[in-house]
C-alpha cells in the first residue's frame, strides 16, 4: 500500500542502501551470514537432506558420525544431519510466527497505550506488567500445558509471552513521537486517532520493532525448543531440535553426537539472531544511513 506511492525504485533503493550499510558492518554481516545459512538450509532441506528425517531404519541405530551419516544416527536409525536440516524449517518458522504475531499485536497495543495515555495507558501497561512479572519460560510452559502439547499451541504460548516486550518498547517510542509537530499537524488537518496511530505513529517505530523482533526471534526459538524439550511442543517423530535433545539426553554418555548437533544448531541460530539484532540497531539509525 505504502510502496505504491514511493517514487519509482524507491523501495529498491532503500533495500539496496540497507544491504550496503549492512555489508560495511562486520558483525552485522556475520549475523546475517549465519541467519542466511540457516534459512537456506531450511528452504533446501527437502532437496539436499541425504535421508528422510522420519523413516525408521532399525539396522542403522546409533551409528557414530562417519562417511554415510555425517552427524551419525539416532536410536531409530534416522540420519541426524537430515533431521537437523529439517529441524531448521520448524525452528525458523516458529521464530517467524512468534515474532509476527507478538510483534504486530504488541506494537498495536503499545501504540494505543502510548497515544491515548491516561487511564487506557494504565490499564494496558499494568496488564503487560503482570505478564512480564512471570519468567517467560515458566508462563509459556503453563500456557502450553493448559492448551495441550502441540507445536501450534507452543507457538501461541511463546507469542503471548513476547507481546509485552513489543508493547512496552513501542509505548515508549509512541510517547516521544506523539509530541512531535507532525502529529499535531495531522490532527490539525482533521485526521482520526486510529489513522494517526497506524499512519504516523507506528511507521516511526518500525526501526526499533525490527531490532527487537530480531532479538525476540532468537529468544522465542530457544523457548520453543525448551517447550519441545519438556514435551510440550513438537511431538515425536517431528524433527524439532529441542525434542531431539530431549531424547538424545538419554544417550549423551555413549552417543554424544545425538544431542550435541541439534544443540549446536540452536546455539548458533540464537547467537546469529542476537548479533544481527545488535548490529541492526546501528544500521537502521537514520543519522548514519545517509
Amino acid at each position, binding site marked *: 500500500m505504502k510502496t505504491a506511492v514511493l*517514487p519509482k525504485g524507491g523501495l529498491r533503493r532503500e533495500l539496496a542502501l540497507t544491504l550496503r550499510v549492512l555489508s560495511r558492518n562486520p558483525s552485522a554481516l556475520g549475523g546475517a551470514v549465519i541467519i542466511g545459512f540457516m534459512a537456506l538450509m531450511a528452504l533446501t532441506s527437502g532437496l539436499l537432506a541425504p535421508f528422510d528425517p522420519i523413516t525408521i531404519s532399525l539396522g542403522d541405530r546409533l551409528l557414530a558420525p562417519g562417511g554415510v551419516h555425517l552427524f551419525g544416527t539416532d536410536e531409530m536409525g534416522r540420519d541426524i544431519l537430515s533431521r537437523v536440516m529439517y529441524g531448521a524449517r520448524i525452528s525458523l518458522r516458529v521464530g517467524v510466527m512468534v515474532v509476527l504475531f507478538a510483534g504486530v499485536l504488541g506494537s498495536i497495543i503499545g501504540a494505543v497505550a502510548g497515544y491515548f495515555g491516561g487511564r487506557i495507558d494504565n490499564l494496558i501497561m499494568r496488564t503487560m506488567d503482570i505478564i512480564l512479572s512471570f519468567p517467560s519460560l515458566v508462563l509459556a510452559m503453563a500456557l502450553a500445558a493448559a492448551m495441550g502439547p502441540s507445536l501450534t499451541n507452543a507457538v501461541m504460548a511463546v507469542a503471548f509471552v513476547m507481546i509485552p516486550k513489543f508493547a512496552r518498547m513501542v509505548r515508549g517510542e509512541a510517547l516521544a513521537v506523539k509530541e512531535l*509537530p*507532525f502529529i499535531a499537524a495531522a490532527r*490539525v488537518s*482533521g485526521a482520526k486517532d486510529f489513522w494517526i496511530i497506524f499512519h504516523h505513529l507506528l*511507521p516511526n517505530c518500525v526501526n526499533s520493532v525490527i531490532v527487537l523482533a530480531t532479538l525476540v526471534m532468537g529468544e522465542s526459538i530457544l523457548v520453543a525448543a525448551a517447550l519441545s524439550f519438556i514435551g510440550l511442543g513438537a511431538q515425536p517423530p517431528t524433527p524439532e531440535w529441542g525434542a531431539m535433545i530431549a531424547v538424545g539426553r538419554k544417550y549423551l554418555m555413549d552417543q554424544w553426537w545425538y544431542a550435541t548437533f541439534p544443540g549446536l544448531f540452536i546455539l548458533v541460530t540464537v547467537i546469529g539472531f542476537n548479533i544481527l539484532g545488535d548490529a541492526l540497531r546501528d544500521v537502521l539509525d*537514520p543519522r548514519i544511513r545517509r
Partner: protein
Amino acid sequence: MAGLTQDLLRIEDLSAEFRTYQGVAKVLNQVSLSLRPGEILGLVGESGCGKSVTARSILRLIPEPPFKITGGRILFRGRDVLKLPSGELRRLRGNSISMIFQEPMSSLNPVFTVGNQMMEVVNLHQRVGRTRAREICLEMLHQVRLPDADRILGKYPHELSGGMRQRVMIAMELSCRPDLLIADEPTTALDVTIQGQILTILAELTRRKGVSVLFITHDMSVIAQLCDRVAVMYAGMVVEIAGVRDLFAAPLHPYTRGLISSITGLEEETDHLEHIPGVVPSLIDPPGGCRFHPRCDQELDPCPRLAPRLIPVEPGHYLACHLYPG
C-alpha cells in the same frame, strides 16, 4: 467591538489555566479578539505570554488535563468551538481551520515522502482520485514557488531545507482550502532571507484566496510587513489591539512602545540595543493590578492595585492601560 456579525473568529473573555505541581498557572486571562474574513491579524508578545496557547485553544490542541479552559467562548462563524462534539471538531480542523507550526524540521513525518503526505491531506478533505490529488499537490507546490515540484513530491522531508519544508507545509495546509490559517511563528526557525520569501508567499496566497490568518510572532518587524491589525499580548492578557498603521504611528501601551523600540533599524547609529527591562512574570503568582506595572516606566497610582480593562480609546483601537482612561 464593531461588526458583530461579520467576524469569522471571535474570542470572548477566554480564560485558561494549567494545573501544575507548583500551582495553577493562569495562562490566559480574559483574552478577547476578533478576526474578519480575509484579514491578517498579528498576535505579538514575548515568549510565554500566551500567544500559542490562545492559538492552540482555537483548535483544542492542548491535552486537558493539565490544561483547562475556565471561561469565555471561541466563536467560529458564530458557533462555540469549545462546545463542539469531537466529530464536528475534527471536521472543523483542516476543513475550515488549518495551522502551520514553528518547527519546519519536524512538522513532516520523516518516514514518508512529501508527495505521500500531501496527497494524504488532499484525500482527507476532497474525495478525488490519485491522479487528481497529485495534480492538486503539484499546483500547490507551484503556488508556493517551489521549483521542480515533481521531484520534491518524491523526496523525504530530511532531504529538503527548512525553507522548502515550510513552503511544503504552507502548500499542504492551504490545499485544505481553509477559511482560517493559524500560523504559529512559522518563520522563527528560518534565516532572515528565507523568512522574507516565506512571508511574501504567505501574504500573497492568503490574500488571493481570501483566507484569514492569525499570525503569531514575537517579531514586530514581521508584523509591520504582513498584518492588517495587531493584538499585543502580555502575561496572558491582551493589552492593545489596533490597525497596524495606527499601532506603529502611535503605540499607546508602554509595553507596545517597548516592543516597537526594540526593533533595530539599519539607519540609526546606536551603541546599545533597546530592550524592555525585566522578564515576563510567573503566571502562577502574577503581580497584582496591571501585570505589566513592575516593568513599566510610567507608574500611576492605580497600576499596582487595579487591573485595567480592554476598552476602546479610538475607533478600532483598544487598550488596557490606566494612562488612557477611555
